[in-house]
């Protein structure tokens, strides 16, 4: 399987390796140059979501490339959490990362230090602390990359022998290739990252090159994986089978040291690191060119991680099978396996893959760190020296110089660490130490995105506390393990106090150093952050920034610009920006801003809060938000806003936001209220109409008897000599009509009383059958006069119920007299029936009269609706049925009428046993 290589003579020489490395670097430059040119023409390559996702893969450094295999060889699936963490975290990017991107775009934030400083009122101190933590935390990580490049180079140089490189510390520094690697990388980074000063601090060329590097390392690693799995062995199964027989598999699948707590904390650590590492912040947030890129990255980036990891375990197992005596470091298997099989071109590819993984990380990380150093460490010092007024020359050049020196310095620091720490600690541990350091940013950053109450002091105290614990529990012990500090410090605790033992604080052992550090440092960090933040309310600047950050995702999000008051000269602002950006570019930026607002030139720009904020954000892109604020305030006469005023502005803004919402709600309420009103109005009109009807009916009913009374009274008055007989007849009519009037008035009063519930009800125990019998008896005279026969159908048992006797009698009399009115004379019959129902009684009064026409049936119980059945005006007031209905309904029952015209009518009511 390696026949092709064994016969040939070795072509891999030192010069070839260097040549290929240089060619590779040239290729990167070419890509970067091409991408920059494309960007200048406005056809950005990095706008592609795929390129964005690939650039995120700068996460996979040499630590992944070589270290994963090493870790897999040591602790089996323990290498996975570092990649599962970001995979899980990716699910949250849709809100968290989107928010960060949006804030950074609107505020021109250029680094994570700037982000945190800006959130807590643009504080220099906070930015400086974050920068310091990042540098201390990340320099070992850079050292690791240098080590990876230099040792892979040394190993490849000895091809075809496989010799582990000697400790670099034994070499004089000029013979140490890591130094040259560091210097070359510094030059490379300077060329990539600080060619010119950009107001948005974006590096299109660099991102394109990084995306290419991500492809290269994936292809290289996968090639080695395929070669090992299908070239050296016959598939995954074969490797696992052989490894099982050799006894390598079982320990590999045990969970890592520390069990699930370690597993979980590694996931958490990696999930945080994926956005908190300065280089990840750089590519994910600063270099993001549009928000749509995020959507693809959310699944494409985890896919990249998955592909990277498939072959890790097979390579680790194959390496252990290939080098059984342990003479070869598992961290180098990716390189040494192809070498062992004398596959030199593959080995070269593997080496290039490693170089790409390491250089990608170093370039982005140092650019990010240099920006932070320049904006958050050096600028504040310079501003202090300049006394807030920069010298007249173009400060941009100074800034670029600072950044270049920062890059060189950081890489040299990395080299120094590499020289000193050297082989002391395996690759993996260094990576995790860095992760734990940047995890300290989480409470201040993520907390600041969702909680308005955080203050600058809280963030400072939290970071300091977390960082101190990290230093004490992770970094110092790692120094001790490297032999720089006495081991007794780790084993017995500081000054021999055992509860201060760095890796078992307060006696908490059994967690594993990483989870132990993560737990205590984050606990201290978060606790202090919250506690100190709660000590005082956020001040004006903090409140203003908190709103911009927390509400960043709201559709009607607040825009900066309201929180400034004072006087400013636009020309002065342009001149000041020019000192940093170059006069031409500053003028160009302001002109663009002016034309966006619909003005022809910058002279028309009002010197208001909006313009000042624009200048400040423009500068923030170059020197960081905190410094930008100081610079801008040096040329403007700012009157400080008090907390009250900021709250006022915020209130105003939120009122406006709330207003549109409220308006919508109000109009809905209004609509429903209108509908209600319309219904009520209709009801009122109906009632009014009914009242009018009632009034006219009552007056009509009153007028009829009154008219006849008056007519007969006048006759009596005008004819005093009327015969006694006539006189008696007329007086009789007057009396009868007066009685009718009285009855009518009584009934109207009765009805009014019932309707207004003013009647007094006297409930008692009564026998309904008895009541019906009495009622029929009392109407007997009426029936007999008309020749009507009444039939009673009553049950034998007494029908007892609790009710008002007088009222019920009234109803019965009403129904009976009604029936008597409508039945034909002599042949009329009235049937009264009482029936027991499970919870009440049914009474039916049926007659054989003319019946009620179907169209009158529904209104038969309304006032003054008299059945017209007999075509002649019936006698009565027309109030009997409405009164009956009022009584029955009050007693909890129901009354209704049925009729077949021509066959008679039946009035029925149902009464419950007790109301």
């Amino acid at each position, binding site marked *: 399987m390696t026949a092709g290589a064994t016969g040939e003579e070795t072509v891999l020489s030192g010069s070839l390796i260097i040549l290929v490395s240089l060619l590779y670097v040239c290729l990167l430059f070419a890509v970067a140059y091409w991408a920059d040119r494309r960007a200048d023409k406005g056809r950005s390559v990095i706008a592609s979501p795929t390129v964005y996702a690939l650039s995120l893969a700068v996460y996979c450094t040499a630590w992944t490339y070589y270290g994963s295999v090493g870790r897999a060889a040591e602790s089996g*699936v323990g290498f*996975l*959490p570092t990649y*599962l963490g970001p*995979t*899980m*975290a*990716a*699910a*949250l990017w*849709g*809100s968290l990362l989107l928010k960060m991107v949006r804030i950074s775009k609107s505020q021109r934030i250029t680094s994570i230090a700037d982000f945190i400083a800006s959130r807590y009122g643009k504080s220099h101190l906070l930015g400086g602390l974050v920068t310091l933590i990042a540098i201390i935390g990340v320099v070992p990580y850079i050292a690791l990359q240098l080590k990876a490049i230099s040792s892979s180079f040394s190993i490849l140089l000895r091809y075809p022998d496989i010799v582990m490189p000697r400790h670099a510390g034994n070499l004089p520094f000029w013979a140490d290739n890591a130094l040259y690697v560091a210097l070359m990388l510094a030059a490379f980074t300077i060329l990539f990252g600080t060619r010119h000063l950009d107001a948005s601090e974006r590096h299109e060329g660099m991102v394109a090159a990084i995306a290419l590097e991500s492809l290269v390392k994936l292809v290289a690693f996968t090639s080695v994986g395929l070669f090992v799995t299908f070239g050296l062995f016959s*598939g*995954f*199964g*074969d490797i*696992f*089978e052989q490894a*099982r027989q050799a006894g390598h*598999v*079982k320990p590999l*699948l045990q*969970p890592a040291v520390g069990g*699930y707590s370690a*597993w*979980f904390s590694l*996931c958490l650590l990696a999930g945080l690191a994926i956005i908190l590492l300065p280089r990840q912040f750089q590519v994910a947030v600063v270099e993001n060119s549009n928000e*749509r890129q995020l*959507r*693809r990255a*959310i*699944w494409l980036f*985890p*896919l990249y991680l*998955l592909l990277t*990891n*498939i072959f890790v*375990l097979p390579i680790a197992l194959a390496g252990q099978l290939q080098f059984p005596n342990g003479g070869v470091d598992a961290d180098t298997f990716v390189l040494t396996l192809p070498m062992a099989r004398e596959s030199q071109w593959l080995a070269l590819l593997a080496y290039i893959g490693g170089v790409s993984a390491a250089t990608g990380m170093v370039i982005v990380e140092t650019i990010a760190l240099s920006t932070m150093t320049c904006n958050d460490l050096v600028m504040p010092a310079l501003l202090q020296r300049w006394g807030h007024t920069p010298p007249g020359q173009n400060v941009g050049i100074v800034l670029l110089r600072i950044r270049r020196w920062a890059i060189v310095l950081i890489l040299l620091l990395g080299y120094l660490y590499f020289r000193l720490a050297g082989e002391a600690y395996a690759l993996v541990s260094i990576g995790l130490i860095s992760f734990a350091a940047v995890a300290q940013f989480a409470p201040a950053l993520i907390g600041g995105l969702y909680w308005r109450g955080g203050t600058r002091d809280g963030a400072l105290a939290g970071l300091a506390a977390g960082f101190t614990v990290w230093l004490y529990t992770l970094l110092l012990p790692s120094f001790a393990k490297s032999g720089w500090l006495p081991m007794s410090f780790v084993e017995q605790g500081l000054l021999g106090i055992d509860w201060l033992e760095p890796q078992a604080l307060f006696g908490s052992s059994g967690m594993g150093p990483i989870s132990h550090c993560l737990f205590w440092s984050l606990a201290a960090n978060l606790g202090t952050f919250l506690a100190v933040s709660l000590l005082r309310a956020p001040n004006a600047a903090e409140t203003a920034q908190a709103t911009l950050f927390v509400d960043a995702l709201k559709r009607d999000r607040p825009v900066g610009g309201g929180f400034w008051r004072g006087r400013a000269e636009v020309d002065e602002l342009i001149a000041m920006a020019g000192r940093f950006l170059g006069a031409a570019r500053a003028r160009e930026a302001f002109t663009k801003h002016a034309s966006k607002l619909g003005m022809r030139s910058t002279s028309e720009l009002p010197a208001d809060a909006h313009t000042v904020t624009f200048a400040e954000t423009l500068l923030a892109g170059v020197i960081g938000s905190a410094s930008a604020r100081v610079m801008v305030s040096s040329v403007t006469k700012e009157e400080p806003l008090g907390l009250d005023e900021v709250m006022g502005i915020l209130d105003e803004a939120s009122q406006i936001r709330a207003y549109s919402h409220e308006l919508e709600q109000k109009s809905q309420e209004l609509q429903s209220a209108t509908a209600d009103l319309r219904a009520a109005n209709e009801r009122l009109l109906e009632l009014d109409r009914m009242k009018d009807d009632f009034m006219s009916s009552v007056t009509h009913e009153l007028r009829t008897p009154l008219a006849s009374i008056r007519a007969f009274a006048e006759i009596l008055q005008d004819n005093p000599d009327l015969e006694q007989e006539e006189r008696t007849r007329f007086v009789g009519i007057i009396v009868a009509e007066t009685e009718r009037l009285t009855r009518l008035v009584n009934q109207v009063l009765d009805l009014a009383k019932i309707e207004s519930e003013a009647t007094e009800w006297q409930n008692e125990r009564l026998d309904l059958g008895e009541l019906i019998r009495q009622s029929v008896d009392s109407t007997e005279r009426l029936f007999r006069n008309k020749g009507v026969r009444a039939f009673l159908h009553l049950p034998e048992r007494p029908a007892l119920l609790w009710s008002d006797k007088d009222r019920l009698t009234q109803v019965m009399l009403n129904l009976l007299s009604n029936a008597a009115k409508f039945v034909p004379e002599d042949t009329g019959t009235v049937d009264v029936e009482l029936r027991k129902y499970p919870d009440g009684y049914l009474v039916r009064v049926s007659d054989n009269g003319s019946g009620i026409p179907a169209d009158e049936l529904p209104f038969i119980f309304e006032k003054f609706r008299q059945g017209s059945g007999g075509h002649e005006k019936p006698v009565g007031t027309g109030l009997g049925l409405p009164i009956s209905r009022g009584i029955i309904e009050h007693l909890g029952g129901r009354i209704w009428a049925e009729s077949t015209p021509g066959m008679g009518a039946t009035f029925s009511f149902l009464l419950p046993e007790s109301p």
Partner: protein
Amino acid sequence: MAAFLVGLLLFCSPVTALFDRPWYWESIPLLYLYFFAAWAMYIALLAWILRGKGE
């Protein structure tokens, strides 16, 4: 958010322990298969959720 919880369940819970047993498919250990299958499924889930969202 729900996807995140699914991830937590898949990768960071005793669920993983269920698959940590000496069982082999074509001599490939179950745990190894589980991790990569679950991982791939999780990615597919994320992609599916985002596709469903539209622009």
